């Protein structure tokens, strides 16, 4: 299974679309949004860093689903089924690939924050933020898998992009919530993306993530998880 993981990670990292959309874009957007005009205050530099890292992580997590849809369409999943690997090893390998390929986006944006934008945090905070962003990306991996097992490769790409942009904007990953009208602000606090970024920002502010954030994310984890399972069951008969 480790060989499978290595193969799939390699394939993902060679995907120009993934590298640009999932790693380069969040870094560039972060640097642009925090340095254009008068520049940003320290608080926004930190918050935006976490928001963009979350955005990049979500994009990469959703991309796992795109990979599954592609593998399904080209018959690679069928070919895997007639190797001695068990179906569970294949699914596990794919999920681990998702977990690994989320890391470059998180690391790249945090590094840009620390080195370019001069964000200063305690060492343990950097570590905990990276870890929480990594764990918090799991619901998005499941959402991507749900799309990937259900839809064609093309439809998955479109669907992932729609989910990605909507959740990023409404969740406040791109712009501070203070710019939103109040109704949107209250809606935003129920999105997985808003709470995902909140995991990181609360640590940067020096306290543990709010119970609300954990509860909302857990709810989305269960919802997206069920979606992925239902989608998988629907296609496993035809793969």
């Amino acid at each position, binding site marked *: 299974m480790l060989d499978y993981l290595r*193969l799939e990670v390699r394939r993902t990292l060679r995907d120009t679309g993934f590298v640009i959309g999932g790693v380069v874009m969040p870094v560039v957007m972060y640097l642009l949004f925090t340095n254009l005009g008068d520049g940003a205050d320290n608080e926004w530099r930190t918050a935006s860093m976490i928001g963009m890292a979350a955005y990049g992580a979500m994009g990469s997590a959703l991309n796992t689903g795109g990979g599954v849809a592609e593998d399904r369409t*080209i018959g690679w999943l069928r070919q895997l089924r007639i190797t001695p690997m068990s179906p569970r090893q294949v699914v596990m390998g794919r999920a681990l690939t998702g977990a690994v390929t989320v890391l470059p986006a998180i690391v790249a944006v945090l590094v840009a924050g620390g080195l370019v934008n001069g964000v200063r945090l305690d060492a343990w905070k950097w570590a905990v933020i990276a870890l929480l962003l990594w764990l918090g990306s799991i619901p998005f991996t499941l959402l991507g898998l749900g799309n990937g097992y259900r839809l064609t490769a093309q439809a998955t790409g479109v669907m992932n992009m729609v989910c990605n942009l909507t959740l990023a904007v409404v969740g406040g990953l791109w712009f501070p919530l203070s710019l939103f009208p109040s109704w949107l602000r209250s809606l935003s606090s129920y999105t997985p993306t808003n709470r995902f970024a909140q995991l990181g920002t609360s640590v940067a502010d020096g306290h543990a993530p709010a119970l609300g954030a954990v509860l909302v994310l857990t709810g989305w984890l269960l919802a997206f998880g069920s979606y992925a399972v239902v989608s998988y069951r629907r296609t496993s008969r035809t793969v």
Partner: protein
Amino acid sequence: MADTTETAADISTGGAADQAVSFAGAVKAFGAVRAVDCVDLEIARGETVALLGRNGAGKSSTISLLLGLNEPDEGVVRLFGGTPEQAVRAGRVGAMLQDTRPVPRVTVGELVGFVAGTYPAPMPVAEALELAGIAELAGRRVDRLSGGQTQRVRFAVALVGNPALIVLDEPTAALDVEARYAFWDSMRAFTRRGHTVLFSTHYLEEADANADRIVVIDHGRIVADGTAEQLKRAAGGSLVAFDLAGAGPDGLADLPGVVSVEVRGDRARLRTDDSDATVVALAERGVIRALEVAPASLDDAFLALTSSDTPARTARTFLETV
């Protein structure tokens, strides 16, 4: 490890384990269509068998059952005395599937090497690439190869695990003539090692040239099973062809000796057991324009066995009495 499994299978199933492949009354329906309709088939270890049929005859569905990609609705499919899943998990099966596209963003060496690693006793990757005739492509990306090269990569993927049974679903579909010959050269080099091989094709000459035995499938049923020679004999002694000149095909099937009637354009082709009697009867009707009498070819045998006016059961029974 493999030996222990085999012994266990031998004890539990007795003689069935001697067969590489065994179908008993297998049925698979998709909606109202019975893609596999009560198939009985035994393939002994070391045999090279061609599954021959038109497009949509049920070849791929049969292969899906054999590989455990689909479950039969009725009947039983066994590989080496166990279920297809057991055989696949034990690394005794390698396959080249139809309708798969190249895996993007991996090199030939990476892909074949990865597949080798999933099998318990693979052959060296270099050897597999050599056998498939793509040794020089190891460093190339799979998604940047020509159609013929891609097909050879898929062949290398099927054989690198050194499986006892290798299954090739239309391995030469969409290849040009030269690539097809090159492929079969590689293939023969592999079969000489004593592996069991099942391949499907709709090219008769491929089945004739590369298989010990030909299984003809039509409408999901096995309509003939034997060597190329047996098939030709089974198809009836001769073929009588003539121009209808507008006379119409009515009553031709009732003429003495006639086994089947086929009309293409204005020309009728009668397969007959007794060409003399048929020709005499035709002469009486006065329809012997551009008359031609020839021994049946394998093509004729195939057409006769799979034509819709030949009841499948009759054809099979007929062959068994030959």
